[in-house]
């Protein structure tokens, strides 16, 4: 299967949306398009598994390499391995859900759906590209739609949030760019596979790793560059928050992982900083969440804490922990998207996100409340949901790190699950349980599209939560390969 399809489908959808006229038409096109993406992703998974089963041990499947800018040795080199495939699946799932929850978007609906689809295109492109320049290209493609989505359709102090988000992310990609330049002029190629083969000299790695890692780290809400997350998520319209937390923060995590695999020596020598920052992010994010009163802020801050696990997993640099990081990315994507969807549903009915003003919603809207609770339980890592699998894998992995001091980091991070329980239960207890106010008692429950969206995400969460061996089966071989790369240099030193 030609991977470019993953870019062409959204592109086509976007163009169709541009030419279509009224809302009904637009959203149908959007839905069909996103479903097509989902189907494509699913089909891709099937093919991928078939290939692997057939014993195709190549690191990347469905590879295709076409020269783009010949003069600069820039190639449109695409291909997927288990990790990117997992990300692609995540993206496609969230896109469908996002389209569904914004079904009744009246204001400038054409532009809205257009931008959503564009954003998804950027994500797909990012995940499939094996050429650093292409990677960077798609990374930035995904930035501007966010700005517009938040700025135009957002709520609260949307302009500032949009500006802050755009600028911080741009700063991130600026750093990434410098790093890429460094890599390019020391290897004379942007091709990740080739670079992986030839390796980069230690000095170069040491100098440029901080650039790229920090750059991608900003996308992944690495402490202390996470401040765009709360405002951005809180101001964004529902679908946009879902995309932001569900997809675009994953761009960062994915990038960090790739960079760590690309410059393993540097990753090893800087791992203590990474772990430190991640640990701070985890516990700090958790405590900050505990103090929030706005549902969206609660989820945004908890995202900081959860993405900390991703970084932690990467920083620990062993197979299990990296597995955990990847699972956590997928899991957090689904979970947080679900959470934002639920919050959006509540907000669209009650017109408030303030915990204090809500209560007893379970009486009025049982379905939405159940969704909310499920999202909450998943985020506090309840067995049976994806969160548990991810976090436990990270813990197991990070405990295996030979350096004993890092166990302290692990313990601290593990402690965050208690804090998580506190704020999740606080939010649930105040909004879902307790006495309900009279005007809320009359509100209706979820509509079919919302139910469908939530259902999709929950299914995703449950699949990982109940049958983690499936996703493991997908990711493991890839991590194995990454580890070969990472450990090799360890012995070499």
């Amino acid at each position, binding site marked *: 299967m030609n991977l470019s399809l993953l870019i062409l489908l959204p592109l086509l959808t976007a163009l169709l949306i541009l030419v279509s006229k009224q809302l009904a038409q637009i959203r149908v096109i959007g839905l069909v398009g996103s479903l097509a993406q989902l189907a494509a992703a699913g089909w891709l998974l099937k093919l991928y598994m078939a290939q692997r089963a057939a014993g195709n041990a190549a690191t990347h499947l469905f590879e295709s390499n076409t020269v783009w800018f010949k003069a600069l040795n820039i190639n449109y080199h695409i291909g997927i391995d288990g990790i990117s495939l997992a990300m692609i699946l995540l993206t496609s799932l969230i896109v469908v859900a996002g389209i569904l929850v914004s079904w009744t978007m009246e204001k400038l609906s054409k532009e809205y759906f257009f931008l959503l689809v564009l954003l998804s295109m950027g994500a797909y492109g990012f995940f499939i590209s094996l050429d650093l320049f292409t990677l960077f290209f798609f990374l930035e493609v995904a930035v501007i739609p966010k700005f517009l989505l938040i700025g135009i359709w957002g709520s609260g102090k949307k302009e500032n949030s949009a500006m802050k988000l755009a600028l911080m992310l741009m700063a991130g990609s600026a750093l990434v760019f410098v790093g890429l330049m460094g890599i390019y002029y020391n290897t004379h190629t942007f091709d990740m596979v080739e670079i992986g083969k030839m390796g980069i000299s230690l000095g170069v790695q040491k100098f440029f790793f901080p650039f790229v890692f920090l750059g991608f780290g900003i996308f992944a809400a690495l402490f202390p560059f996470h401040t765009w997350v709360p405002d951005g998520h809180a101001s964004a319209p529902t679908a946009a928050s879902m995309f932001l937390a569900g997809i675009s923060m994953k761009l960062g995590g994915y990038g960090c992982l790739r960079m760590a695999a690309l410059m393993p020596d540097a990753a090893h020598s800087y791992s203590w900083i990474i772990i430190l920052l991640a640990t701070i992010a985890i516990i700090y994010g958790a405590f900050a969440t505990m103090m929030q009163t706005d549902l969206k802020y609660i989820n945004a801050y908890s995202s900081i804490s959860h993405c900390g696990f991703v970084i932690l997993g990467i920083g620990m640099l062993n197979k299990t922990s990296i597995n955990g990081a990847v699972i956590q990315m997928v899991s957090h994507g689904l979970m947080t998207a679900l959470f934002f969807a639920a919050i959006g549903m509540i907000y669209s009915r009650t017109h408030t996100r303030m915990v204090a003003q809500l209560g007893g919603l379970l009486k009025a809207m049982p379905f939405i409340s159940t969704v909310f609770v499920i999202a909450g339980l998943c985020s506090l890592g309840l*067995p049976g949901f994806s969160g548990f699998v991810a976090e436990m894998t990270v813990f*197991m992995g990070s405990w295996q790190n030979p350096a004993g001091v890092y166990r302290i980091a692990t313990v601290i991070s*593990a402690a965050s699950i208690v804090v998580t329980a506190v704020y999740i239960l606080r939010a649930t207890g105040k909004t879902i349980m307790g006495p309900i106010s009279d005007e809320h008692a009359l509100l209706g429950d979820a509509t079919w599209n919302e139910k469908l969206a939530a259902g999709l995400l929950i299914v995703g969460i449950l699949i990982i939560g109940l049958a983690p061996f499936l996703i493991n089966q997908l990711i493991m071989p890839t991590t194995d390969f990454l580890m070969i790369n990472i450990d090799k240099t360890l012995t070499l030193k």
Partner: protein
Amino acid sequence: MSNYLYILWIPLLPLATFVVLGLFGRKYFAKTAGIIGTASLLTSTLLSFVAAKQYFFVDGKVNGVYQKIIALKYTWLQFSPNVSIDMGIIVDPISVMMLIVVTSVSLMVHLFSLGYMKGEERFATYYAFLSLFTFSMLGLILSVNIFQVYMFWELVGVSSFLLIGYYFNKPSAVAASKKAFIVTRFADLGFLIGILIIGFYGGTLDIGLLIEKFTSVQSPEFISITTASFLGASMLTWGLVLIFMGGAGKSAMFPLHIWLPDAMEGPTPVSALIHAATMVVAGVYLVARLFPLFSMDEAALTIVTYVGAFSALLAAVIACTQTDIKRVLAYSTMSQIGYMMFALGVSKNGGESGLGFMASMFHLFTHAFFKSLLFLGAGSVIHMVHSNEMKDMGGLRKLMPITHAAFLIACLAIAGIPPFAGFFSKEEILTAAFHENKLIYGVALFTAALTSFYMFRLYFTIFWSKEAAAKTHHHDAHNDHGEGTWTMKLPLLILAACAVGVGFIPFSQFITSDGAALETHVDMVFSIAPVALSIIAILLSASFYKSHNSKSDKAVAFFGGFYKAAYKKFYVDELYLFITKKIVFPFIGQPIAWADRNIVDGFMLLLANTTAKISTAIKGFQSGKVQNYALYFFGGVLALSVLFIYIWK
């Protein structure tokens, strides 16, 4: 030996019930949910009895020793080549015993709830949650892998959370459910880290393998874990103590017990199931399951012993002062579990010295029945009086004879009066304690006396002490559902029968630390002391509470401050509140939240603002005067010349 595979259905049936009722309950089974739940559970109960029969009497025993049989094992999540979470079913004496306990008690509760919860709006949901709990509890006891234990452990916690918070629009219930979950969650943190430690050194998470590796003193794993130490204690101690912390959380051992009394906010049958018979003994079960490991580490066992003993005493004292009947029962539960704990603590692994282990399991077994009986009895009392407070009750023995009888039997059982079940199990415990540790024995004895005192205090105030009766009578005239439906009476009768009967089971033949049968004999001389004490205590409370008089008030006055402290549960709750509300929130949460807005984010803003400031500061550069432009031009020329002709050439 996979001919135990059918055991798989025992947990799966409740799970299926949960899924069905959870998804379609509200719509389709609003009325019939109870029947469905009970039916499916009845099946599992029968299955577990079949399993017990097969195991204990057919093929469990191989040359005199009951085997640990792994009926099923499936790798659920692979961490690394030999570290993985496996889902499986272990069949060994304690797990089978627990199967019996859980399913039958749960069945009783299901039955009882049919009447008790009749007409509830979320009837189906209630049964869904009950099934979820039963499933998780069964999964927990069948675990082969320590991480499997942890998972079901969490699930048990959450289902208890859901059931406590069943009356979700009652703030106190919500608060209680939150408290229960968070406290146990905190304990589970310890459990998790313990698992990480043990799993790391053991190189596996499989309980069987762990035991294998850590019980042989020469094995490299054992050496490495005992040599590695942190803050003076060996890693083994750390691991086990942390795991025990998890157990203490679930089993409401001091100081993690504070959630249990509040948990009584849930529907009474739930309390009977979760907070009396099954979930709260999970901690005991955990220690028992890992007992071979614990037995390798003296320090850990000592901690278990003293925590257990202290909790038993403390709870008993507090129980004497409470006025809410369910809270009294809750504290008695705590104290009984304390018994089980220290019984384990004083035990050794295998042989004669393994008596404590067997005693603890025995007590767990008997306690399950009479305690759930007590709760159900209390349930039907509350059902009638519509209040938990003792003062609203009295003289009910005429109105509800069956309940009265059942309750009396239960009280006698828990007080350890022969020939009731409690007597036998408690006897074994006392014997074990007597042989191992006199101090503990003393505590146990005193606690036993206290137990019978407060239990009969309860009994008399509910069923005798006259004049409140009139009020109730009158009150009762209006709603004459007497003792409720037969579905509510039947469980009482069955459990009562158990409370009398189970004591005669030759328990030591079946369940011992090493699986080999253990000869125990009830020593009449030895039993004199405890029995006598209990009887004295009963008479005392009779004189206090049988008929309303001022003796009790005198006693209160006599104890004064101590009574007050006990009544206030020794201010442990307040301490916790102080730590969270006065320390964690204002000194950790607030500052971080503030710092994030004002320092971290403020820094970013500062960057932006300084840029803006600079740009305004230098705007004079563009003065609009063409001559200045020319001047700057020339300045530029000079600067370049100086730089590149004299400095950088």
